[in-house]
């Protein structure tokens, strides 16, 4: 069963917090969660978003020159 969520994979918690602030300011739902093991072996956090917001958020990140993040369905 596919979930309603996607995850933005980030370099560090600081990067995640920068994105969280951006999304909260745009009223886009998000939550910082531990990175799911199947996406990365990193012990850090990622930004969980709604899959339905993925395209909007991709555009928003590019507009804010945050281009190197990977967004994957979870």
């Amino acid at each position, binding site marked *: 069963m596919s979930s309603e969520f996607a995850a933005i994979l980030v*370099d*560090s*918690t*600081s*990067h995640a*917090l*920068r994105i969280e602030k951006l999304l909260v300011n745009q009223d886009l739902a998000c939550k*910082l*969660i*531990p*990175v799911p093991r199947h996406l*990365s*072996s*990193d*012990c*850090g*956090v990622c930004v969980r978003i709604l899959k339905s917001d993925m395209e909007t958020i991709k555009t928003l990140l590019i507009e804010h020159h945050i281009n190197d993040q990977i967004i994957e369905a979870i």
Partner: protein
Amino acid sequence: MTQAALDFPSSRAKDGTLYLDNAATSWPKPPGVARSMCHFLDEVGANPGRSGHRMSIEAARIVYATREMIASLFGAPDPLRVIFGSNVTDGINLGLHGLLKPGDHVITSSMEHNAVMRPLHDLQQKGVEFTQVPCESDGTLEPDQVEKAIRPNTRLIALNHASNVCGTILPIREVGEITRQHNLLFLVDTAQSAGVLPVDMVEDLIDLLAFTGHKSLYGPMGTGGLIIGERIQPTDLHPIRQGGTGSRSEKEVQPDFLPDRCESGTPNAVGLAGLLAALEWLQEYGIGKIYFHEKLLCASILDGLANISGVVVYGTQDAAKQTATVAFNIQGMEPSTVGLRLDEEFNILCRIGLHCAPSAHHTLGTFPDGCVRFGLGAFNTLADIHQTLDAVHRLAKEAV
């Protein structure tokens, strides 16, 4: 009246002791600083950026908010280029040791603190060359002298913004322009100016800005660091400390992105929580207002000292050309005696000696005896100045 104005603490200790050593560390702190640190310890507590649970993320939010406030204060291009360390010395060490390679040449001034001079002398043993441009006897620096010292292998100019001995302000913007004309990098030590004088990485053309949290930013000790400008690639700077960052844990090599590349180990998050409260207080109260207040105090004490027979004042003796750090001697009385008697007999605390800046004292003509330094702060008052001048007057009368 704003909350910040209401929160103006007294410059006196409970027993009436007058603190005039703000150039070493500011005291008292705005009351929100201690509250914020207690809140962090009591309510937040977790390790920022090391776990995905909510307490860890809340801790990381506090650290990130501090990063944003520091970036905003100094006109930094990106909060992720703010590297936190223990103090300004950490920041300077990262800038100098991280950037310079054998064969590089550095220009600095004769008014620098040992936070710059000791790393440079160490780097000299490893093949880095440096030139100390002489300042005038009041500590001022002619930018032309800096330009004349440029060599083909010059890579960096490193300057303090204001002297920790006598407060003399160095012309960082003019030197910044020289660095751009010659394609050099520019490191500025803002230990004595941040929070009082405007410092802007863009307008002042600064590539590496070292700052401390516990002086005129009014935060706790153990906070400070370096802001890395966009002309420097993260990989151009070799980290002086390597280790766990909470990121890329699958790899045993240091990450190549900022701030993690240069921030290893658990940060002083409780200190940064205090610094955040201090920065919020500064923002609400206004740096400009603090500058004008300190300038008034500085002009008043300079004027008073000039009228005391037997007192020699060092530096520009002009409140418009210096911070509120005032250096002087009483002829016929050792600085250590003046400091001890001010403490024991007059309840006034200041700093005497060489102030970790032997080169600056050579420039001012006060080496090796040193001098007495009053470091005024935002919470001092004109009444404090009058009491201090009266004490110096009495000591000077005895010394004659």
